[in-house]
């Protein structure tokens, strides 16, 4: 069950990063996108097989954790993902991050903004507890304003109730 959840997250992550989150490097030629990354020259900077890249963080580490209905406590899967994020952030210390909290559409606008902030903050506090400096992590909530899935049932809602760690900074900025 846990394995399925993890791979679902990874697939969702790949899908999203492929269409909405160009990396710091190579966003225009798309070399970082999943299996399309060239393998013959070894590591392409900024691609998903460059362990210091945004694409690697999004796809291999996992940039998001999911939440149960109306909850902001982290699941075991979520904590495992955040452990990976913390390790990565400590290794790649030139990155800042904004943790974006989101809710599904089943709620009123203001409440969902506050709930998304609770979720993002839960992820932030966990990362801080693992040693990531608080000064590198900001939170913002989008409430129900930015779903990634648009169907109106639990299959989509489950993916929309999320906290996504969005990297900023890095070597080139």
């Amino acid at each position: 069950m846990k394995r399925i959840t993890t791979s679902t997250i990874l697939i969702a992550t790949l899908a999203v990063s492929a269409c909405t989150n160009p990396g710091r490097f190579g966003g225009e030629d798309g070399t970082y996108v999943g299996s399309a990354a060239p393998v013959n020259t070894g590591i392409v900077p900024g691609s998903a097989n460059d362990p210091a890249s945004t694409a690697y963080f999004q796809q291999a580490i996992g940039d998001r954790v999911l939440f149960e209905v109306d909850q902001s406590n982290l699941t075991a899967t979520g904590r495992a993902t955040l452990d990976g994020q913390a390790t990565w952030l400590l290794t790649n210390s030139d990155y800042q991050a904004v943790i974006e909290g989101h809710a599904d559409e089943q709620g009123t606008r203001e409440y969902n903004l506050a709930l998304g902030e609770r979720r993002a903050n839960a992820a932030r506090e966990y990362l801080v507890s693992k040693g990531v400096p608080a000064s590198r992590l900001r939170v913002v909530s989008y409430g129900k304003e930015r779903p990634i899935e648009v169907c109106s049932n639990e299959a989509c809602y489950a993916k929309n109730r999320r906290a996504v760690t969005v990297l900023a900074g890095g070597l080139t900025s």
Partner: protein
Amino acid sequence: MSVRFTLKCLAAAVAIFGFQAGGALAQQGPLRIEITEGVIEPLPFAVPSFQPESAEAGQMANDLARVVSDDLTGTGLFREIPASAFISTVSDFNAPVQYADWKAINAQALVTGAVNVQGNSLTVKFRLYDVFSGAELGSGLQFSGTTEGWRRMAHKVADAVYSRITGEGGYFDSRVVFVSETGPKDARKKRLAVMDYDGANVQYLTDSGSIVLAPRFSPTGDRVLYTSYETGFPRIYVLDVGSVQRRVLESADGTMSFAPRFSPSGQTVVFSISQGGNTDIYSMDIASGQSVRLTNTPAIETAPSYSPDGGRIVFESDRSGTQQLYIMPATGGEATRISFGEGRYGTPVWSPRGDLIAFTKQNKGRFHIGVMRTDGSEERLLTASFLDEGPTWAPNGRVLMFARETQGASGSSTLYSVDVSGRNLRPVRTPEGGSDPSWSPLQK
């Protein structure tokens, strides 16, 4: 039954509806509750095309009468008798009315008008007749303005007619600020817009470059508070409707501020700040930027709204475990829970009359717009759908506007209005989708 009596009857029925819709409905037919079914037999009226008193006034005379008729018909309380049924024509605003001709087609109310246009100045006169008693109801009135504002003149006439027949304040000469929406759910574009209450004269106040949420009119309708992600983080802005100039309100770095509303004085804003996973309610003096914390719990406390006298604030909190409605003094302090029904309650808004709280209710996967008394009694649900949200009161406290979002990938948001009795649910026509409406006071 005399017509005078019928007109008074309608006024009485409307007055009762304001407070006890359920009871009034139940006594008039078989016992059944259909939330949005009309029950009152609408009062038949006639509005012949107004009389042009200058050469330039012809088209406007016709258009004005149409808007007056649309306003009245739109309430669900009136039914227009089409011009094709007329026996009499009105060719002179000051000539005696042929009551028998209007009686014959069962027009219980007759509105006549005259229009004078000189350059860009416009004068509109009207008279209201109670046909069956053969007398004018109130005396003739005259409004002056510009040709550009011709719809407002029509709304003023309709407000006067509505007021005289129902005994209620009018609401047609008012505006609504809202979020105009385009695009699919996962790439929705939002921008602020303001329009006449009926969806006419839409004007955009921001572009769609950043997410904008929940605009709220000031008590005089000259300013709007709203939340924007312009900086990447939600912040509250105050915008002057006339000049479209805006400024951001004070906020601390690393926090989010949202859900603003004006106090009745227009000088204070009450709103939420989220920080460190906790959301509380604050008030801020707009001029000085000085703020005061009003709630201090680990719960989510948001969506505050002042009572009309400014003394109390209704808000939502999940301190009990789920979203519920509470009332506290405007200076903070002990809050009293007022919602106790099944489900969750949010987005409370105090009625301009002070008697009712409108809210969004979520129960068993459905959303409702409802009202309750300020002590939480007499809860009534007015609507039901996949997602109804965010009511706002018409200036006379008789009608609510809200947003209805449809489900699924192609879902979109549309503004609706509904009478506080639960009757007369209608979409409000806007050029794009709409959400987060906020009704202005009656214009001066």
